[in-house]
């Protein structure tokens, strides 16, 4: 190795780290049409343009989040390929509070309780009220839709809708969340269209 190479090697490493950091914190454009969400293993067709939140801000496992006006106001989140026994987030056994693990045999109330534990444990929602649990056709199979309201530390009242299906013992999830005032309702129809178009990748 020449002296020049020796000198530039640490500099190159720093530049690569800076590039990676800048990539991981930048929102990406999501065009209209068919989109493959590889991480979550879901394909959807969207009628609108979206911004994709950087993966460095993800809370859940295999999470991809789209937003129109910023995730604090509205968000569509895709989670997928969660295996039996895994939680939808990465966590340590010693953690005092745990998001309940997914089981392929979960009943609709148990799936709703698992989502509530995700909000309470990971998103620190002090208020989480399930407003309805209903059947839904999602990813070509019978799934569960849970509707809820919640309040996090910013005290904004938000609505949420979570569609879940178990395909070949793996959990797939799509969530719409938004401020109860205005933003959630704005995307309800689009979310229904996304759900209707969703396929397993």
């Amino acid at each position, binding site marked *: 190795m020449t002296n020049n190479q020796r000198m530039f090697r640490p500099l190159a490493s720093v530049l690569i780290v800076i590039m990676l950091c800048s990539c991981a914190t930048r929102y990406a454009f999501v065009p209209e049409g068919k989109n493959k969400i590889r991480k979550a293993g879901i394909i959807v067709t969207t009628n609108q343009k979206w911004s994709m939140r950087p993966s460095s801000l993800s809370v859940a496992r295999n999470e991809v989040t789209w937003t129109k006006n910023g995730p604090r106001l509205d968000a569509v989140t895709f989670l997928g390929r969660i295996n039996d026994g895994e939680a939808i987030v990465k966590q340590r056994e010693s953690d005092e509070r745990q*998001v309940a693990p997914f089981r392929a045999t979960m009943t609709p109330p148990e799936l709703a309780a698992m989502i509530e534990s995700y909000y309470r444990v990971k998103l620190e929602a002090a208020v989480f009220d399930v407003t309805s649990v*209903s059947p839904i056709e999602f990813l070509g199979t019978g799934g569960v839709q849970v509707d809820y309201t919640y309040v996090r530390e910013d005290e904004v*009242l938000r609505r949420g809708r979570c569609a879940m299906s178990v395909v070949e013992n793996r959990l797939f999830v799509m969530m719409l969340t938004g401020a109860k005032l205005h933003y959630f309702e704005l995307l309800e129809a689009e979310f229904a269209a996304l759900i209707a178009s969703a396929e397993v990748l």
Partner: protein
Amino acid sequence: MTIDVTRLCALLFALCLTGAACAEPLDPTTMVPLVPAGYQPVDVDEQGLWQSSNEIEQQIANSHLLFRNPDLQAYLDSVLARVLGDRAADLRLYVVRDPDFNASVFPNGMILVHTGLLARLRNEAQLAAVLGHEAGHYLRMHTIDQWRVRKSRAAAMSVFTLGGAFGPRANRNNWYFLAHSINAGLLASLFSYSREMEAEADAYGVLLMTEAGYAPGAAAEVWSQLISERKASAEARNTPYKDRAASLWSSHPPTEQRMDGLAQYARSFSSPSGQALSHGTNSWAAAMADLLEPLLSEQIKQNDAGASLFLVKNLAQDGWTSALHFALGNIYSLRADNGDAELAAQAYADAVTFPDPVRGAFRAHGYAQLKLGNTQLAQDALRTYLQRNPEATDASMIRYTLDNPPQQ
């Protein structure tokens, strides 16, 4: 050699705390309120503090985190009135939705009680102990005294900030996290009290509750329950139990020391004029009858199974109810370890044997039996749930399940 000023301050502060811990025990029987009835702030410092507290109170009164239940509010206000007599008019009580064990008092007399605290109490006397303690801070004028002390000890403030930085909620700045920091042993809060003040509020609280006719031993029971719960939580996670308040940086005395102190204060009292001191177990059970299930649910959904199991079994010492069996089933169901499906099914089966079971008991019983393959039993339970709750928000899901039973 250089001297690290922060470390030096920390050491001096630690020595002060050690001294406080070894101080002579207080005599609650000689304590009197230092704040006169109808008190209003007199100097500029205190007026500013009250104004800030009033602004926070306005936020809380309009917050989505406020637990709005007129019956519960009336009951809690009545207990506060019994503990404080005519001084109750100077304090106002708000219930905040939060599954953690917590209560706090602000300088203007606003008391916050978190739903997680209510879920953990076994009787009215335990509530009186908590309210007496918080009122003790107010009536012994700790809020403004502490603020003045801090103002004049710039060096100590740097230690406080250092301690606060370790807390999980230390960097938040709204009232909700302020309330958390007060009693969580974090030092970032403006209104957190010294160990001496906590000990004094404990002693004064025991005095107030005893004068109101409550059994003073209930105060130590609150802490004994909390210690056992934290130990159960740690054991379930195979981690050693740590008392957060035992840290040298904590504003609160170590929890076990606090429990011993409370028990000692309780022994200083004999029944006033020979009347029987009450625990108020029945009145507490009546007030919490419809609330216990949702309040326990908040705790259970945090999935700290060790703590939740202790909590439910501790409450069941006063008698099992449908809500407690249902809660037990929910803990096992969410934990989902080997054998938990059977334990949950048994708990739900027990929950529906009561004449007036909690709302979701038949639904949970039905789904639990469905998982065990008892289809007929499951369908009967789900139909019963629909009959009892025809307008349930999950009725369509139940009907779908009945029409499409899972293939075994």
